[in-house]
């Protein structure tokens, strides 16, 4: 078990710089999710921690030791690959026991460790099969099993759930989290699915285009996003971000509507409000934004409404199934204290 510390890490491929100085720490035993849109550098960062990718500048330390020049095999790290990378010519048993075999463990030791891991993961009946005789979810579990048999200092996961179907994903999400609790190991989990990050992680690190945008516990990112990007990225459905002009305690939206705010910001801002923080009211009510409903989608537990007004689109989420249908003129009122304001030029949070 160990803590991981990443300091000003940059990465260049030839002359193109893809990572621009990223720093964050993962405490011993912590489960950190690394999220961001495709191509932002999540896999690259993970591979640098694993030692599969050279670090252009900055340092990566594991358990207080700088490992920039340490070979992958000496870093005491296990990684679950995006494509599992199971050894196709070995049985499940040998796949899981390979790392122990390489460090010269005795046959009995290997058998015990593999049996234990298989027990935890429910793989006992499949130990003698080869990977191609397994389902996708079982392969995913073998990949996990290969990582846990040798009890490494740090676990790295690169989108291990991305190709599974929805139901299996939810199940594996819970299993991985339970496994983490049980092993108490330090884990870094890459995903581009913010729901996965929210539900699994102790802390989330949000990246964009090779930069760290915000790091913090899931609810902190949800409640107080540090900038407009994080605000839009965390939370599903995404936060409404409306261009507005702020002046002495009120904002004027692009539609001309004026709303009262508890802020003294001035100038061009982004007015942010989450879909679940819009209350339904009559269009001419005090503090309401009048909009016309364009789509209504219902999942049973929630009703998702998109509505427009003069080039402004709002998304709202209701759980009480109000009688709203396409074409209705409705009022949506931001709930008190739920409004986020961001500087429109820098995207940074105001107040």
């Amino acid at each position: 078990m160990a803590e991981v510390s990443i300091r000003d890490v940059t990465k260049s491929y030839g002359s193109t710089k893809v990572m621009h100085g990223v720093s964050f720490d993962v405490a011993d035993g912590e489960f950190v999710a690394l999220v961001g849109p495709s191509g932002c550098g999540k896999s690259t960062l993970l591979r640098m921690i694993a030692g599969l990718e050279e670090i252009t500048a900055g340092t990566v330390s594991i358990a207080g030791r700088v490992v920039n020049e340490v070979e992958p095999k000496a870093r005491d790290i296990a990684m679950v690959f995006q494509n599992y990378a199971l050894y196709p010519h070995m049985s499940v048993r040998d796949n899981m026991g390979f790392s122990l075999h390489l460090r010269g463990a005795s046959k009995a030791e290997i058998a015990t460790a593999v049996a234990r891991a298989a027990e935890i993961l429910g793989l006992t009946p499949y130990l003698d099969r080869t990977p191609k005789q397994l389902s996708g979810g079982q392969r995913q579990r073998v990949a996990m099993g290969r990582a846990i048999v040798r009890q490494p200092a740090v676990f790295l996961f690169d989108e291990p759930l991305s190709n599974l179907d929805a139901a299996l994903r939810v199940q594996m999400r819970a299993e991985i989290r339970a496994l983490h609790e049980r092993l108490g190991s330090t884990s870094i989990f890459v995903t581009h699915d913010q729901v996965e990050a929210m539900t699994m992680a102790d802390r989330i690190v949000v990246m964009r285009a090779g930069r760290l945008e915000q790091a913090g516990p899931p609810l902190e990112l949800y409640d107080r996003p540090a900038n407009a990007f994080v605000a839009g990225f965390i939370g599903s459905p995404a936060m409404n971000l409306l261009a507005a002009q702020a002046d002495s305690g009120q904002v004027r939206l692009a539609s001309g509507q004026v709303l009262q705010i508890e802020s003294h910001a001035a100038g061009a801002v982004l007015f942010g409000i989450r879909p679940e923080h819009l209350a339904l009211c009559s269009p001419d009510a005090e503090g309401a934004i009048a909009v016309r409903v364009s789509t209504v989608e219902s999942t049973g537990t929630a009703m998702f409404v998109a509505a427009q007004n003069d080039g402004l689109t709002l998304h709202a989420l209701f759980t009480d199934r109000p009688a709203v249908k396409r074409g209705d003129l409705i009022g949506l009122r931001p709930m008190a204290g739920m409004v986020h304001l961001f500087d429109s030029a820098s995207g940074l949070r105001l107040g």
Partner: protein
Amino acid sequence: MTRRFKHLPGQIGLWLGVALLVLWSVGPVYWSFVTSITPPNALVSNSLHLWPEAATWQHYAKLFGANSTSQGNEVASVWPQFSRAFANSLITSLAATALVVIIAAFGAWAFVRLQFPGRDVLFVLVVATLAIPAYTVMIPLYRLMISLGLIDTYTGVTLIYVSAFLPLALWLMRSVYQAMPLSLEEAAWLDGASKLRAFVQVVLPLAGPGLVACGILTFLSAWGQFMVPLVFSPTLATKPLTVLIPEFVTRNYVDYGLMNAAGIVAIAPPLLLVMFLNRYLVSGLMAGAGK
């Protein structure tokens, strides 16, 4: 019933094609076999027979016999020569095959996975040697082999075979490795394997079919090689079957029966090898590595 008839023209075409192909490839072998069991006097008759009227094993007896007759006269047995040439063919072909497969297995991996300056240029140069016609290098090669004292030695002939057949094998193995996901090796490194260990325990077993294909190709090419041994194997010390068999033509008599009997025997080793290795030429070894 109607379905079968609807496709009848296509079916006939397919079968015709298959029949032509079989005739094309098996026909000469069959003809050689028929010739090898036809008595000498029937061989020079005017009428053509798809199967000899009186089949005879006398040519094979002559080939394997301790003594031999030709046109009614007692002549020296060809068995000592034949067996020697057979061994020469086997030794040079097997040695070349083993060397080519081993070098290609490691060399191609280096061309794919190791970073070194001029890597791709070097590879193109190696493969480009395939385009050089053999006869243009024959004379310089001959002088080189003389100065090295390698004429009429197993080492010399084997080295020439290796240099001739290695580029193709390298090329083939390179594409085999390129098609293999790097993440398998990376997983092995993280599991604690050195680069060499990961290569030997993870990459090589999965490259098996490619290696077998390289082995078959090289063995067949070396076994059938004529020009190189014609120049570099002047005596029975290293002379292979391909060069020996045409020598059964004497000044006043062409022993077709004997030549074809020898030819049929010469087909056996490559045939056995292909039949044995065929089972390892399976596809789908990579199945199950990913999702």
